[in-house]
């Protein structure tokens, strides 16, 4: 690695030395608890739409915890946070355009 990249990497490492270890255990515990809630809900035989809504909400919270704490995005500068997360959310949201067609097949049959 070039010297100036090495210097930036060392600066990033120096910042990470101050992150407490306990927070990672808390996040891990929270992720396990949310997984347990998801499995518990499966055994409750809830209506599919309500079940899907709750499961996806929990998955989004879990994703935010993993990205924020484990992937250290919480500690990045705001330009990095906004560029990566906005690009990702916009691109993934564009795929939603296919869903009306899936409902069309369900109600009308494939033509």
């Amino acid at each position, binding site marked *: 690695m070039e010297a100036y990249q090495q210097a930036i990497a060392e600066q990033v490492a120096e910042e990470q030395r101050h992150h407490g270890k306990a927070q990672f*255990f808390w996040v891990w515990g929270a992720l396990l608890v949310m997984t347990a809630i998801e499995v518990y809900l499966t055994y409750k*035989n809830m209506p599919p739409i309500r079940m899907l809504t709750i499961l996806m909400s929990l998955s989004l919270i879990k994703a935010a915890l*993993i990205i924020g704490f484990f992937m250290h995005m919480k500690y990045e500068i705001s330009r990095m946070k906004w560029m990566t997360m906005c690009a990702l959310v916009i691109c993934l949201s564009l795929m939603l355009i296919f*869903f009306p067609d899936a409902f069309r097949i369900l109600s009308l049959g494939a033509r």
Partner: protein
Amino acid sequence: MADATLTHDMPAAYEPSLFGTYSKKIGMWLFLMSDSLTFGALLFAYSYGRISTPHWPTPFHSESIVNATIMTAFLLTSSLTMVLAVRAAVNKDAKTQRLWLLATMACGMGFVILHGREWTKLIEEGLTLSVFPKLAGHPATGELAGVAQTVPQFPATFFGLTGMHMLHVTLGVVYLGVVALRRYFIPVLLFFWLTAWLGTPPTSPFHYGAHVLLLAAVICSIVLWLKPKVYDSSDVEVAGLYWHFVDLVWMFIFPLVYLMSAKIL
């Protein structure tokens, strides 16, 4: 025109990074963003099939749900051990870093083994793809025997999505092995390949899938031969980003594929 050489008297100060971090990490983030679109497309394809198919199979009984829950716990724990490895790396504690990386790899391998067991069970019950080797003996008569013909979207999207994720986990284990053990990991990788190849019957898709490990061993050997180096904290952090991403993707696959297709009696 003659080439001109610019010279200046500025000290060797470096230009601040636009995103406040080193380029290797930005490169990994860009790769992960593109990879998340790959998994996004697969998850949307699965959901599309699920919505548009009236009689979607629900093949996951309590045993499968428990198995998938343990797999999830393995991945979540591996993320914790990975973050502890990064922490040891920034504190320049090489021995602890290596131990946490090996613990992460062990959790990843546990995940792959349990996933392989789940796949094998489903294939024996009749859920299969045309590209998989045919099972010897009598055709499957389980409850999933006709699913490949009646709802081909299910095995196609299920094996496509979970197979892609399993490949990512496997390559993640190889990546961490190279970072932790460098060239000493190559014989270990070859041992894994032989074990997976010889330990699975020819009727199993893993018998042929094991050759991914051989291919990985060849590529890793070339990379380590061309550019031998001691991996520092930035390399461990970048490897950690990849590993956490694999965990992140599973947080969507687990509820969407397993929990939403569960049959709890």
